[in-house]
């Protein structure tokens, strides 16, 4: 019986670092390298297109970091994280029991990680770590300053300052900027704690608004409230949302 084959994608911004992974993989005829990428955008594009089984992923990279890359991929390949020294990332790996390689790594260590990863390839999706949870641990205490989304194969980086409001739509959130709305597969509750509470407020079960976009509060006929934003959008405000708003804005 012949062993199954695997496709692999190598992502690292340093050519020598990629060469090292390639060299180790050369010992494994069952693994076929489908592409190498030098930055986050390229990685997302290649992975979406080629759908590799295995992903060798550096954390610190231009454009998007490793966590952001993984966040945008669906399905997610079995991932082997590789990093030189990132205390926060290491902590995240420990917390979520993710296997990783530390630069520089030994051949034995590489083989071990590869074996583990190959084993996971047959398993169900659930063994893949949730990149959102990983990033939250890795950037612990640090609030988000941007959100990455993918429309088809296009990756967009949205600086939070450009967001007007966020709306929950089932398993997705709609991220609304002045230009357009972006859909991202994430729950509004997992997003909320990573936003600056001084700038964003959950005014409703399904809505978070950027506070400086708020023009006024209006009372509706049904005795509830709506928030009117600078672009004219009316966002429903729940009773508890109204209380939170009053608290943040003072009694005014």
């Amino acid at each position, binding site marked *: 019986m012949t062993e199954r084959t695997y496709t692999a994608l190598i992502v690292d*911004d*340093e*050519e*020598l*670092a990629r*060469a*090292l992974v390639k*060299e180790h993989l050369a010992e494994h005829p069952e693994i076929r390298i489908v592409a190498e990428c*030098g*930055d986050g*955008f*390229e990685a997302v594009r290649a992975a979406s297109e080629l759908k590799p089984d295995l992903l060798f992923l550096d954390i*610190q990279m*231009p*454009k998007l970091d490793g966590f952001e890359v993984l966040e945008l991929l669906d399905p997610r390949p079995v991932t082997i994280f590789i990093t*030189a*020294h*990132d205390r926060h990332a290491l902590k995240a790996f420990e917390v979520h029991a993710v296997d990783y390689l*530390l*630069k*520089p*790594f030994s051949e034995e260590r590489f083989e071990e990680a590869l074996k583990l990863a190959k084993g996971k390839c047959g398993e169900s999706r659930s063994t893949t770590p949730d990149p959102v949870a990983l990033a939250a641990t890795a950037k612990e205490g640090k609030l988000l*300053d*941007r959100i990455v989304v993918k429309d088809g194969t296009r990756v967009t*980086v949205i*600086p939070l300052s450009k967001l007007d409001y966020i709306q929950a739509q089932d398993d997705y959130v709609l991220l609304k900027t002045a230009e357009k709305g972006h859909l991202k597969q994430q729950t509004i509750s997992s997003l909320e704690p990573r936003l600056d509470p001084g700038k964003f407020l959950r005014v409703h079960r399904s809505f978070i608004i950027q506070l400086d976009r708020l023009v006024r509060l209006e009372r509706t006929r049904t005795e509830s409230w709506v928030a009117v934003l600078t672009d004219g959008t009316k966002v429903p405000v729940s009773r508890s949302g109204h209380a939170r708003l009053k608290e943040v804005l003072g009694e005014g």
Partner: protein
Amino acid sequence: MHPLIRSRALLAGYLFGWLAFGVVFLFSARIESAPWKEAILLAAIAAGLAAVLFPYSYYSCRALPLRSTPPPTLAAGWIGSALVMGGLWSALLLAISKHLQLLPPHYLTWQGWVSFGLTGSFMYLVTVAMHYVIIAHQHSEESLRTEQELRELAREAELKALRAQLNPHFLFNSLNSISALTSIDPKGARKMCVLLADFLRKSLKLGERPIVPLAEELTLLRAYLDIEQIRFGNRLRVEWSVDAEAEKAEIPTLLLQPLVENAIKHGIAQLPEGGILRFSAHASNGFVEVLLENARDPEADVPAGLGMGLQQVKRRLRGRYGNGASFEAKSLEAGFVVAMTFPIDAGDDSHD
């Protein structure tokens, strides 16, 4: 210890003061038509007594600090003690004068004692004022010394921090490059090892001194850039231009190193296709003009204000050159520039 014992100059000044008082006393005695011999003796005794009796007020001055004692307490304390000491001085003076028959009998009376006493009290208050001046001076010297010590400590801490900044990310990535090179290009691997060792040795050595010639800092920068060159390959394109005159300047240790590290970390390393890092140091009219420019990702956020690292560089420049140095950092559309000037010759042995 009493400051008069500690400082000879102060003691001389103090005794000179009483000599002056003695001279004034002598002439007032002469005006009262005392014969020379009696007048001189009387003046000498008056000044001598005061010089011996009054310095003790120093300890009371320490006990009653000007700033923290309420004014009524101060006034009561000093008027009271001035009257007591003036009275004592006057009484001793009259007693000795009587014994040596220096004064005509009409001075050796109740009124005589009072009028001498008031003079004594006044002189006593002058001594008190002098002591306060001395104490204030001591305080300012003390605070100057503590300030200097603190500054020294801060500088050491700063250097230590700078040395610790040898960032681990750089080290581990360099080791990883070596690991990759060992099979691809063994000679390159060896070269990288030597460069890395060279860089480490230089930065450890440099950290021992607060001020170094620009030339030495630049060899460290070159070693650092040579290593990054291997890591980043053709993504890093260095344009280097330094003239010999500029290299003579003496600058605070590791002033430029963090800037170049930043240029790589936030500039070149964030660009998949890399970019140019331009460094120049030129001498002109007694000043060195340093310019560091690097490409950066135009889509990345422009940081607001100076980061910690840049602020520290600015502070260290000012610490050494005062207003003789200038510093500017700004983001361009697709780049970042740091420009500074400082004198080639700092003009003194000042240390930051």
